[in-house]
Each structure stands twice: as structure tokens, then as C-alpha cells.
């Protein structure tokens, strides 16, 4: 993720996807050849309930321009309620981050099922465009030397 001044800047987005729905949705998007921007780097987790604030902030700290967290639709969680617990945590986190001045749109959440390939492509497009408009992330990015 080195900063390259000579090349045109492209947003880098870290996507935390749950194994059972959103990751499968991303997979289906690929198989179905839905075009979406190549700006996301996917990290697969068992459940959106596994995504902690530490991980999201670590992505920002390491220079990610945006973060997408995506899980199953409420009610469809493979572990019955993982995403319902997570939903409360995410709501509080996103509000807190905006409260300290992180731009709205840096950290995003979505519910995408295994069959929603088109929606997945759509969300990635939307997030990429939002982050592109925001420009490179500077807040909470660790700088050394």
C-alpha cells in the first residue's frame, strides 16, 4: 500500500466479509462476471460478529482509504444472531468515529446475502466512489519516519 505520487491515486478499501453470505455473494459476483471496481481487498471472517473495532481501526491505521464490513441480512445469520449483536456495536462505532472527525463514508457497513451478487457489485461501486470523492485517508493513519 505504498504511496506512489507518480501514479494516479486509487482508493484502497479493506472489506471484511462474513463467510456465509457476503463472501459467497462476492464469489457469485465473480462467477457471474458482474463488474465492480478492483479497489477492495477482501478479508474473510466467519461472521460479521467476529469483526472488532480493533480490526477496523487497524485497517485505517495501516493506511486503508476505506473499510467495508458486510454480513448476512438480519435474521439470516449462520450463527443465528451474530450480526444482530454486531449491528449494535457497528452503529455505536460508526457514530463514535464520526464524532471524532473521521469522514462519513470511510467506514461502511452492508448486509449482502449469498445470492445478491449484483448488490455486492453495486455496494463496492458505491463505496469506491464515496471513498474516491473523500480522497486519500489521512486521519488515524500511522506515519513513521
Amino acid at each position, binding site marked *: *500500500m*505504498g*504511496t506512489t505520487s507518480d501514479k494516479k491515486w486509487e482508493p484502497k478499501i479493506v472489506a471484511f466479509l462474513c463467510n456465509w453470505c457476503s463472501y459467497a455473494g462476492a464469489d457469485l459476483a465473480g462467477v457471474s462476471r458482474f463488474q465492480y471496481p478492483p479497489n477492495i481487498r477482501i478479508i474473510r471472517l466467519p461472521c460479521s460478529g467476529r469483526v472488532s473495532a480493533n480490526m477496523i481501526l487497524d485497517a485505517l491505521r*495501516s*493506511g486503508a482509504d476505506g473499510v467495508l464490513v458486510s454480513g448476512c441480512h438480519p435474521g439470516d445469520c449462520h450463527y443465528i444472531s451474530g450480526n444482530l449483536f454486531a449491528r449494535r456495536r457497528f452503529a455505536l462505532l460508526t457514530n463514535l468515529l464520526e464524532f471524532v472527525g473521521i469522514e462519513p463514508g470511510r467506514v461502511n457497513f452492508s448486509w449482502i446475502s449469498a445470492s445478491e451478487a449484483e448488490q455486492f457489485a453495486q455496494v463496492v461501486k458505491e463505496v469506491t466512489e464515496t471513498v474516491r470523492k473523500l480522497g486519500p485517508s489521512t486521519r488515524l493513519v*500511522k*506515519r*513513521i*519516519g
Partner: protein
Amino acid sequence: MKVLKFDRQAIGEWLSKLAEDYDIYAPGESSQGTWQLISDYSQIDIKSGVPEKPVKNFLFPQPETLLTFSTVPDDPDAFKPREPEDSGRKNVIFGVRPCDARSISLNAMPYEKDTYYKANMEKNLIIGLTCNTPCSTCFCTWTGGSPMGTEGCDISLTEIEKDSFVARGVTERGDKLLCLATAASEASDQDIEKLSGLEKDVAISTDITALEETLKSKDMMELYNAPFWKDIAERCVNCGTCTFLCPTCYCFDIQDETLHGRGRRIRCQDSCMFPLFTLHASGHNPRGDKVQRVRNRFMHKLKYFPDRFGSVSCVGCGRCVRDCPVNIDIREVMRQMLTF
């Protein structure tokens, strides 16, 4: 050594002159006495007593880069450490109280072989400011200092009457700085008399004498096993307020940080109050209990350090007394150790 007399304006002119070659830091008017890069004398707050943060932050910059290296695997010099380049810019630290100034030379003893500390000593010139009215939490005289002390300073400034200062050159490089003070005049005999009058008058009343000698004469293990540590430690919350604000707490941590092909090895202040300080990789912790850590901090300052280096590792600035969230008062600890 030079002895000059300044009024406010002359100091202002002098500092403006110095600012051409140095970055000048002083307790800031707008920041409740924390150190600020200043460009104008009017920004300086010399009334507020001991500044909130100790002068050690200039000698142990936070963080201090020890080494840098590349982490790009293709780079033939990958992971080969280099020393960081020095900008060459020097600082003048203005308004350092005698306690803080003294901490610089006390800390220099364990840092004898440390090139970074030595370089920082050369990089920072200290303009001291003596204390005409010590605070109630001050006890520098207990620990071998004095409100009028000059140890660790390059120049020592004393306000002999309102807005009128006498500056004494303490070191050669201090004298060189004073040579740039064109608006100042030679101090008269009268001024010097006033100065020595203050040296006699300004005092901190105490019944504590020979703290160092008495502590050194005590048996180390007897003090270590004293029962009072448990009472002192009971309310301690094991935060690092005392250690981070203490001018003579000099312990540090070394950390590696890497990002995007670049890496650095830094050191940062660390606190023996934290369990992590002594934790082994095996999980064993030689100072796993709060009372052990509290005892270690005081024993280090008041017994181990004087036994090794001759002085107690405390300058009596009173910051820990003032800012400890649970009011652990090192003066009481000293009394307990002295009478044990």
C-alpha cells in the same frame, strides 16, 4: 562567567535573536505551563511554577527514532539498520526550574554510554529560572537541590525584582548565548548583592536533612521487606502518571514499527508501574503484584540509585505529589523509609 542584567524587553530582544539559530521552547501562556515552541516573549508564562511536563521530554523525545531500515525484500539493504539523520537544529529551553535542570545531570549518570542522550544534551541548551517563591509541593532541598540551584543549566536566570533579571552564565556555551544579548547590561554589584540576598532568603522549610546519607546507610533488604509498602500500594491504581511526569524517571521501551516498506526502531518512555514492564515471554512475571511495582519505583529512586550513583533519583519537583490520582505522596514515603 558572564553575569548580565535584563529587563523584559531585553530578554525579548535576546530571545528573538536566539530564535534565528535555535528553536525556543518555554512554558506557554496559553497552555497551563506545558512546553511550547514560542516566537515571542509575551507567550511565555514564568509565573506558574513547575511546568506540567518535565524537561526530560527534550532529552527523551517522544518517540525517539534510534534506527531506520527498509523492509522491502528486494532491497539489498533490507533490514539493515541506519542511524537517522540529524537536522542539526538546536533548541533553547527557556524557563527550566532548578529541579528540572538538575534532573538532566542526574539522568546523565546512568546514560553515560548512551550516544542519543549525549547528543540530546548537546542539542538542548538550558536557560534556567530560579524559584523565588517555591510551591507548597516543592521539596528540592530535601533531595540535594535548591530553589536557586544552577546545576544542569547553561544559563541561570533570577528575577531579582519585578521584571528585572540577572542572568549567570553557567557553562561555556551558556556564556556564548549571553554574548548575543546586546540589549542587556553588565550586572552591577548591587544586582549581584540582591541575587545573593535571594539565595539566602529563598528557602523551603523542612526537618528533613541528610536524606541521601541516611537512606544509603540503611540495609537494602530490610527496606525492601518493610511492611509499609503494602499500605502505600493499596490505593495505587498502577497508572504511569508519576513515572511519565517525573523528570528523573528515565526507563524506556524499545519498539519496532513498520509500515509500507519502511521501518524504524524507536524508544519511548516506559513505566515500571505497568505489569508488562517485566513480563517474560513465558508468562512469568517477576513483579506481577502491584506492591512489588510500587516498591520498585520508590526503592529505585531512593535506595538503588543513590547506592550506585551517590544521589537520590528525585529532584523534589512535586509533580507526582500534585498529580497522583490517589495522592500517593513521595514525601511521606521518604519519611517512612527514613524512620524505618
